[in-house]
């Protein structure tokens, strides 16, 4: 099939030329231009030029030869014979041939240059496109897939990219759609390894290993080699498309350099990210150590001090003193218990062990639990509840959400003075249950409204008050696990307002209707 097409491809121009010249000759004879031989010979130059532009140099030479023969046969006396009466015509033939040859060569070269210019424009375009894409991509996988596609489209070739894996063993990590089976072959990988080690281009059309079908280009920057780009032309049709001309090889090397730079950039940014992460975890570890040692030691000191005091000096204390010391022990232990709870909560959140046990939650029920829990620390602060009748049931983990509310309300208590007022308001707003807790305490700087949800961060005004900076971070983790948001802002006047919004879900209407179906009879 291919042979036939190859054959067919090569004789078509010649047949066409013959046809054109026959037609031309017929027209010339018909329209009586038969005796103005100078014009005729000029007209015979057209097929030559035409074939030079469209089919190149060989067909145009053929056209010139056929033209001369036709001219001789039909127009030079004796007509209808190849013999020539006047030998000066031989000189004419020679001039004609020379002019034909010259113009044909020029036209063919022009065409060639046009082709080259077009190709190089295309290459420049694809290089440009690739480089633009590469600066935007920060993920190695996407980057390599992009390179494969781009190079494959530009060169009509199969592409495979090899990079070292963790054990520094070269492996195929990206390929164009058609190249899977080709890139995995043993010989391909062996060549790729050689190129990777030597940093030299190898394969078809290069100085090395030229008998193999592919061309292997190292992905090289000045410092190091990142991998190998392998290219194999797709063999279809009448010719091997995208064969490795010098131009294509240069292009490939440019692609290689560009890819290497892009890989280097991605790797550097990954390393930078890692370094940042490590610095951050270092900071958190230090903060954790500081915070935990302080927060554990302080209550421990009071517990140990009070207990030993009571044991050693049993008789010298009045019963009032004794009660006070015992209360100190209890408070210290409770404080440590809170710390441990928070630490465990944080670990749970961070390790992804937090599992929501979602149930239908009634905010009224939850507020009851929260108020009962904060009752001990509340002293004389008044907690006002503003609960809209319309607030629906919503899906959530009631135990965890109660923990969030206890943390937030405890903060409100802790950072406000005794006898002040704390307001908890619950409303439904745009498909969310919105809970706001507003205190009249020390307040918060606008600039800190997001920072206070960071681990171990403590507001600048909290100074003398004990705390770990974990509570709100846990709240944030839990609320976000529910798909909700938590935010802080300075309250009007003074104090802080914490706003929690939780998605309300949509089964609530059914639930509300269901609740009113019974008659009161008892």
């Amino acid at each position, binding site marked *: 099939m291919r042979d036939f097409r190859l054959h067919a491809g090569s004789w078509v121009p010649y047949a066409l030329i013959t046809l054109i010249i026959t037609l031309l000759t017929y027209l010339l004879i018909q329209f009586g231009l038969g005796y103005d031989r100078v014009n005729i010979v000029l007209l015979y130059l057209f097929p030559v030029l035409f074939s030079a532009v469209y089919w190149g140099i060989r067909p145009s030479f053929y056209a010139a030869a056929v033209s001369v023969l036709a001219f001789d046969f039909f127009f030079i006396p004796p007509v209808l014979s190849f013999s020539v009466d006047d030998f000066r015509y031989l000189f004419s033939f020679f001039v004609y041939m020379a002019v034909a040859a010259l113009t044909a060569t020029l036209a063919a070269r022009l065409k060639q240059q046009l082709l080259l210019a077009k190709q190089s424009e295309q290459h420049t375009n694809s290089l440009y496109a690739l480089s633009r894409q590469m600066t935007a991509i920060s993920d190695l996988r996407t980057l390599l897939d992009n390179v494969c596609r781009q190079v494959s489209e530009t060169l009509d070739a199969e592409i495979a990219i090899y990079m070292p894996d963790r054990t520094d063993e070269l492996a195929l990590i990206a390929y164009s759609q058609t190249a899977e089976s080709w890139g995995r072959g043993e010989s391909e990988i062996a060549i790729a390894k050689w190129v990777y080690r030597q940093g030299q281009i190898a394969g078809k059309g290069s100085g090395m290993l030229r008998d193999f079908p592919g061309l292997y280009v190292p992905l090289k920057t000045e410092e190091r080699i990142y991998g190998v780009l392998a290219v194999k032309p797709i063999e279809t049709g009448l010719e091997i498309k995208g064969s490795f001309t010098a131009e294509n090889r240069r292009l490939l090397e440019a692609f290689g350099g560009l890819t290497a730079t892009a890989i280097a950039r991605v790797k550097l940014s990954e390393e930078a990210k890692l370094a940042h992460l490590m610095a951050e975890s270092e900071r958190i570890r230090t903060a954790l150590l500081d915070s935990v040692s302080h927060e554990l030691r302080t209550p421990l000191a009071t517990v140990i001090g009070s207990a030993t005091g009571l044991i050693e000096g049993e008789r010298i204390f009045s019963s009032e003193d004794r009660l006070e010391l015992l209360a100190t022990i209890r408070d210290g*232990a409770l404080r440590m*218990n809170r710390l441990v*709870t928070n630490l*465990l909560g944080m670990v*749970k959140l961070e390790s992804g062990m937090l599992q929501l*046990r979602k*149930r*239908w*939650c*009634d905010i*009224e*029920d*939850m*507020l*009851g*639990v929260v*108020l*009962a829990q904060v009752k001990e620390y509340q002293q004389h602060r008044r907690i006002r*509840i503003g*609960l809209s009748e319309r607030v629906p*049931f919503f899906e959530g983990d*009631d*135990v965890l959400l*109660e923990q969030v509310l206890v943390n937030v309300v405890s903060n409100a208590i802790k950072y406000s003075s005794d006898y002040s007022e704390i307001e908890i308001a619950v409303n439904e707003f745009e498909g969310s249950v919105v809970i706001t807790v507003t205190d009249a305490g020390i307040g918060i700087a606008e600039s800190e409204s997001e920072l206070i949800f960071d681990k171990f961060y403590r507001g600048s005004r909290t100074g003398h008050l004990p705390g770990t900076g974990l509570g709100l971070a846990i709240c944030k983790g839990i609320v976000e696990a529910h798909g909700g948001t938590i935010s802080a802002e300075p309250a009007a006047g003074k104090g802080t307002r914490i706003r929690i919004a939780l998605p309300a879900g949509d089964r609530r209407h059914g*639930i509300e209707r*269901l*609740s009113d179906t*019974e*008659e*009161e*009879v*008892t």
Partner: protein
Amino acid sequence: MTIHSGGGARILIIDDEPQIRKLLKVTLQAHRFDIHEAEAGEAGIYQASIVHPDLIVLDLGLPDMSGMDVLRRIREWSSVPIIVLTAKEREEDKIAALDGGADDYVTKPFGMGELLARIRVALRHVASSVQEPVLRFGPLVIDLAQRLVELDGSRVKLTPTEYDLLKTLATNAGKVMTQRQLLQQVWGGHHYESDSHYLRIYIGHLRKKLEEDPTRPRFIETEPGIGYRFLSQD
């Protein structure tokens, strides 16, 4: 009943932590309870069979076998009240223990007052096995014979489900009731966790009718993640 009268009731403590055993022994003895100890599951089961305690305090985290198994083994032949000790974060353990026959639970670390209250309620429920026809909780009166509920002397109208729920809670006053127990006793039949919103709705209704401020309940207290407890007002 005052806080000082253990009345010589026999309590078996099954816990592997010597510190906890010591704490419980000293404080409970001071409240006139007769204390027996076991430091592991097998020993606990054995002791339970020879001592015949009036109440067992069982730690769910034991070295030789799971507290749940101890609970199950004792329940095979005895209905002695059992109060389990658990860690805070394990709601599912608490529910499993309560549904598996435990009478109540206390979360570590616990206050002594809380444990004593649970013990007293559990012992009282054993003592008053005969149902009184009229239950009184301060201003709230529930007449079981006539299905009447009065609050501060005036009649409270309840739907049949609300009444059944209140009755179930009140007859178990002081004791925690898991959501499953309540669903089973009030609605009967088989129930799933997803049905718990029925319960929430009816609890909400009861609170609206009985409580002055439903967010500060006097009668029906929520046990987060577990169920509800009717406060016994003493």
